[in-house]
């Protein structure tokens, strides 16, 4: 599903990622563990084709970074959900509109947008807050809205960049519960985190990054 073949990434002459070589299978849930600045976010952005590797090739499904064309990227991103640490919700839109937005900009019919948005809000237990704005929600609730938005296009890969950062234990567990449900439905998940305690509570395969390099097991 996702494969990094000897991937290097440099910015302004500085090495951010060095010689990453790994695979994530279809339906697998993998953590990317590392401190701030270790290159976790860059790794996720390479999967999203938001950045191009300096050397090596990134494979996502049937596409790879060496041959992918700019015009194909928006269509690939519709099958890759992305959850940000800072949620990136639009504050001037309601919970419903934030989730529906991701589907409506892809040209989906209004009735289908409504049906799928309501179903997802129900899945993340936020149906009752669909008319509220993000600023009136807790951090955990905002992240659940962001997850719903990431799932609205029914992606085969979900990328999550520190989705539980700055959350209390209860909110963290609720987010993990939702991610596990999504993974159980067949969606591959690559989740960046610096929280080793979370990995201890939910042990799964973990890629550890140290200064941009994978730490051998």
């Amino acid at each position, binding site marked *: 599903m996702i494969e990094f073949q000897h991937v290097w990434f440099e910015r302004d002459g500085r090495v951010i990622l060095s010689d990453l070589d790994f695979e994530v299978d279809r339906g697998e849930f993998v953590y990317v563990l590392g401190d701030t600045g270790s290159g976790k976010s860059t790794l996720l952005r390479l999967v999203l084709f938001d950045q191009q590797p300096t050397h090596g090739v990134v494979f996502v499904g049937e596409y790879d970074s060496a041959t992918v064309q700019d015009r194909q990227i928006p269509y*690939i991103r519709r099958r890759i959900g992305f959850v940000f640490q800072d949620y990136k919700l639009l504050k001037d839109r309601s919970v419903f509109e934030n989730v529906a937005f991701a589907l409506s900009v892809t*040209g989906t019919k209004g009735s289908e947008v409504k049906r799928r948005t309501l179903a997802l809000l129900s899945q993340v237990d936020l149906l009752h807050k669909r008319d509220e704005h993000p600023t009136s929600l807790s951090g955990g609730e905002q992240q659940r809205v962001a997850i719903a938005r990431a799932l609205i296009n029914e992606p085969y890969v979900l990328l999550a960049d520190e989705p539980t950062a700055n959350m209390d234990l209860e909110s963290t567990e609720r987010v993990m519960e939702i991610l596990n449900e999504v993974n159980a439905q067949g969606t591959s998940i690559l989740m960046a985190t610096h929280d080793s305690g979370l990995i201890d509570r939910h042990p799964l395969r973990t890629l550890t990054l140290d200064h941009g390099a994978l730490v051998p097991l």
Partner: protein
Amino acid sequence: MSRAFREALVALWRTGTVGVLSAVAVGASLLLVGVFVQVIDAARGLSASVKDRVEVEAYLKDRASRSKVQELAEQIAGLSGVVDVTYIDKQAASKEFRKMFGNELLDALSENPLPASIRVRFDPTGDVTVSAREVIAMVEGNDLVESIDGGEAWLSGLDRALEVATGVGVALGLVLCVACTFAVSNTSKLMVLAQREAIEVMRLVGATRAFVRTTFLIGGAVQGTIGGCLAALILLGTSGMTTSWFMVDASIPITTLGSGLVLLGFLLGVLGSWTSLNRVLQAIAS
């Protein structure tokens, strides 16, 4: 396209006060351009009106023979830009004077002291001052002519005034057009920047570049058009007042001027959004 149009209207609607203020700012800039065009149009009207009234009058000596005066009048009529040459005899001059100043003055005199004259009028669409100077040059020093009214100094003054007015008008027009372009462009930039987060999210959830562009170009166009409509409505509402201020009829119909402003607003809105969006997309991508 319809989805992009809907998204553009939603985005504009959500900008709330910023959106309203931006449209008003665009409208104010375009209104300035509209008022400037009206002022220039009025100045041109006034200039034509003044030129239409320019005349040179050559006062004739009492002993000038009618046939020689006729010959001189024909020579003057042959000059370029001259549209009318009229011979005013002493009786006609007296009649004109009485009409203007009453009978008392002339009645007090034993004989009519007013000289006969040749009155020359010019084509207002041509260079009146050049034509008038040619006429003055022809009659000056002529044995039949006693004096000339509408002389060199007055015409030079008119020439200078028109040159200054044209120069100031062109300079002011350029400054206004540049200022208007900046104002509309910066306003569009403000609107695009206000939606930067939405643009970033659009890109990451798989909106095509064309969709993002179309959405914001439509937004800029709508905003510019609203500003243009505001300016046009204000001009339309105050057209009666401005006509009485300028004292001349406008040669550019107010509906044409209004439509021009709406079109200008539309174009500047699209242009401003295009340039701003390019910068934002580059910034997001880097």
